[in-house]
C-alpha cells in the first residue's frame, strides 16, 4: 500500500470512527440526520451526473448546469400553476399533475440545454479550451438573469403537492417526501445506467468520451452524440429541480450557483467523467453536508465539504472511483 492510499484510508477511517461514536451515543439523531443527508445527496447526485457526463465527453465544466437545475424548478412551479392542485392534501388532481408535469419539465430542460449547446458551445468546439468555459459562465449569468426577470430576487414558492404522510419509528421522523426523493432519484440513476451501458447511443457516448476522433472514424455522429449528452444531463437536472421544489417548496434564482458548485464538487469527488462516481459522490457529499450541519455547525459546512474534497484529491487525485478516461 502506497503512502497516499494509506493516508486516504486513515482519513476515511477517522471520519467513520467519529460518526460511529455519534451513532452509538445518539442513535435517533444519527438516523434522522442520515435520512436528511440521503435526500439532499440524491438531488446533488442527479445534478452531478450532468456535470460529469458533459465533462467526460467534451472536457467542459458546464457552469450553466446548476442554473438549468434551478430553472427546472421555476418551470415546474409555473406549469403546476395551470392545474387545480390542492396544497392542503393529496388529491387525484395532484397525482395527475405530478405525473404530467414531472416528465414535461425534464423534456423542456433537455430542449433548453440542447439549444444552449447549439448556440454557445458547438461553435467553439475547436476554439481554445477556455473559450467554451467563458460562454458557459455567460450562459449561467443569462439563465440567472432570465429567472431574475421572471420572479425577481425574492424566493419563489413551489406548490406543496406531495402527500404529507409521515411516521415516527423509534423516535426517528420520516415522511413520504423523503422516500419519494430517494426512490425517484434511484430510478432515474438506474435508467441512466441502463441507457449508457445497453443502448447504441450510450455506447456512442462512451466511445466519444474515450476518443472523439476515433469515434468519428467509426461512423459516430459526434454532434448528435454530444447534443444527446447535454439532453440527458438536463433531463436529470430538470428532475433534480422538480424534486428540490417538491421537497423544499422554495427556490430562488441563485440557487443553482451554490448547489451547482456543490454538485460539481460531488462529481470531482467521485471521479470526474465517471458516471457511477458522480452518483456516489453526490450521495456522500449530501451526507457529509448533513452531518457537518448538525455536528459541527452549518457555517462550517462549506469548509468541511471543500476541505474533504481537497483531502480526497490529495490522497487520490482521480477521485473516489477514478477516471473512466485513461491518461494519455
Amino acid at each position, binding site marked *: 500500500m502506497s503512502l497516499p492510499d494509506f493516508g486516504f484510508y486513515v482519513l476515511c477511517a477517522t471520519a467513520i470512527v467519529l460518526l460511529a461514536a455519534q451513532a452509538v451515543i445518539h442513535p435517533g439523531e444519527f438516523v434522522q440526520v442520515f435520512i436528511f443527508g440521503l435526500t439532499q445527496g440524491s438531488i446533488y447526485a442527479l445534478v452531478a451526473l450532468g456535470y460529469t457526463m458533459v465533462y467526460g465527453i467534451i472536457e467542459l465544466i458546464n457552469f450553466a448546469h446548476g442554473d438549468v437545475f434551478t430553472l427546472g424548478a421555476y418551470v415546474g412551479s409555473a406549469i403546476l400553476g395551470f392545474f387545480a392542485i390542492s396544497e392542503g392534501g393529496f388529491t387525484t388532481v395532484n397525482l395527475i399533475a405530478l405525473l404530467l408535469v414531472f416528465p414535461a419539465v425534464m423534456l423542456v430542460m433537455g430542449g433548453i440545454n440542447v439549444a444552449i449547446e447549439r*448556440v*454557445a458551445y458547438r*461553435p*467553439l468546439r*475547436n*476554439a*481554445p479550451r*477556455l*473559450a*467554451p*468555459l*467563458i*460562454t458557459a*459562465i*455567460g*450562459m*449561467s*449569468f*443569462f*439563465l*440567472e*438573469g*432570465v429567472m*431574475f*426577470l421572471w420572479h*425577481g430576487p425574492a424566493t419563489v414558492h413551489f406548490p406543496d403537492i406531495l402527500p404529507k404522510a409521515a411516521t415516527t419509528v423509534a423516535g426517528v421522523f420520516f415522511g413520504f417526501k423523503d422516500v419519494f426523493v430517494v426512490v425517484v432519484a434511484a430510478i432515474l440513476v438506474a435508467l441512466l445506467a441502463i441507457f449508457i451501458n445497453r443502448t447504441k447511443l450510450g455506447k456512442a457516448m462512451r466511445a466519444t468520451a474515450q476518443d472523439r476522433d476515433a469515434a468519428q472514424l467509426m461512423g459516430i455522429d459526434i454532434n448528435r452524440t454530444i447534443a444527446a449528452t447535454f439532453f440527458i444531463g438536463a433531463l436529470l437536472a430538470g428532475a433534480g429541480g422538480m424534486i428540490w421544489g417538491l421537497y423544499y417548496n422554495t427556490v430562488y434564482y441563485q440557487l443553482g450557483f451554490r448547489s451547482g*458548485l456543490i454538485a460539481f464538487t460531488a462529481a470531482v469527488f467521485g471521479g470526474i467523467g465517471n458516471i457511477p462516481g458522480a452518483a456516489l459522490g453526490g450521495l456522500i457529499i449530501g451526507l457529509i453536508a448533513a452531518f457537518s450541519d448538525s455536528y459541527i455547525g452549518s457555517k462550517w459546512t462549506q469548509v468541511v465539504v471543500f476541505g474533504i474534497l481537497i483531502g480526497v484529491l490529495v490522497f487520490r487525485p482521480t477521485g473516489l472511483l477514478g477516471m473512466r478516461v485513461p491518461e*494519455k
Partner: protein
Amino acid sequence: MSTSVFTRLHLRDRIRDRDTAVYSILLILALVFPMASIYATDGTALVSQATRAGTFVLLAIGLNVVVGFAGLLDLGYAAFYAIGAYSYALFASTQLVTLGFGEIVPQLFYNFDQWTGGINAVGGIDQPTLPAWIQGPWSGDGPFQVVRNFNFGGDPVAFYVLICILIAAAIILVNNLYRSRLGRAWMAIREDEVAAAAMGINTVTTKLLAFGIGASFSGFAGAFYGANVSLVSPDSFLFIVSITVLVMVVLGGMGNISGVIIGALVLYYVVYYLIPGLPENVRSLANSIGLSSETTRSLADATQHLNYIIYGGILVAMMLLRPQGLLPSRVREQELKHAAVQEEEAAVEMEHAT
C-alpha cells in the same frame, strides 16, 4: 528552411510593434487620465475607479501566468487576493500604510528571487525605499500639482500612481519571466505535457511555480486593495471574483500581456461601470427623447432587471465572435492557424481517399 526563419523573425518584429503601440497608448492614457478626469469632473471619484480597475489589471496579469503561459486552470484565484488583503489588514492596521506595504511586498519579492534567479532585471523595485522615491520632483507645489504630497491616508491620486507603477513593474517582471527558461518550460507544458516531461522538464515543479507566481500577484493585488479600500470583508473575495478575473484573461487573449490588460480594463468597465449605470443612461435617454415619466421609469426598471442577461449575453457574444480573445498572442494565433490548415488538409486528403 531559410524562409521559415525569415517569416518567424518578421513575425517577432510585428509582435513587438503591436505591443509597443499598445503599451504606448496605455501609458499615455494612464498619464492623461487623472488630470483629464479631475479637470472634467472636479473630483477624484473617477481616479479611485481607475485605481480599482488597476487592481484587477494586476490580478489578470498574475492569472495570465497560470492560465495563459502554463495552460492551467485556476478557479481559486480570489483566495490569494483575500489572503493578501487580510495579511495586509492584520499587519498594517496600526502602522503607517507605506510601512505596511513595505512589510508585505518585500516578502513577496523575496519569494520571487528565491524562485527565479533570471528576473533580477526588476531589482529597481526596492520596496522599502519606495516611499522615498515616490516623493520625487512631482510632489509639492511644483508644476505637477495634481500629485500633491502622497498622503496615502486619503489621496486617491497617490494610490493611482502607485498602482500604475506596480502594473508597470509587473509587466516587466512577467515579460522577463515569459522569455526566461521557466517561461519556455511553461509553454512546453502548455502545448504538450508528455513531450515536455520527455525533454527533461520537471512538470510538477514547473506547474507549482506557475501557481505560486500567479498567486503572488494575487496576494500582491490583495495587499494593495486592502491598503486602498482600508476595509476588507470576505464578500470582496467570492468565487465570482475568480471567475471575473478568468474572464478578463480569456477575453483579452490568453498568454498576451497587453491583451490581458486591455481585457481587464474593458471587462472592468463593463461590469462595474457600464451595466450598473445602464438604467440611469436609459432614463436620461428616454427623458431626452420626450417619453412620459411613467414609461421612463418602467424602462429604467426593466433595464435594471436585465443586468444579468446583458452581462451573460456580452460574455457569450464576445467569445463567439472572438474565441481567441481581443488581442490574442500572435505566436499562438499562428500556431492555431497552422493546426487548422493542417487539419483541413488532412480532411481533404481523407475525402480523396474515400
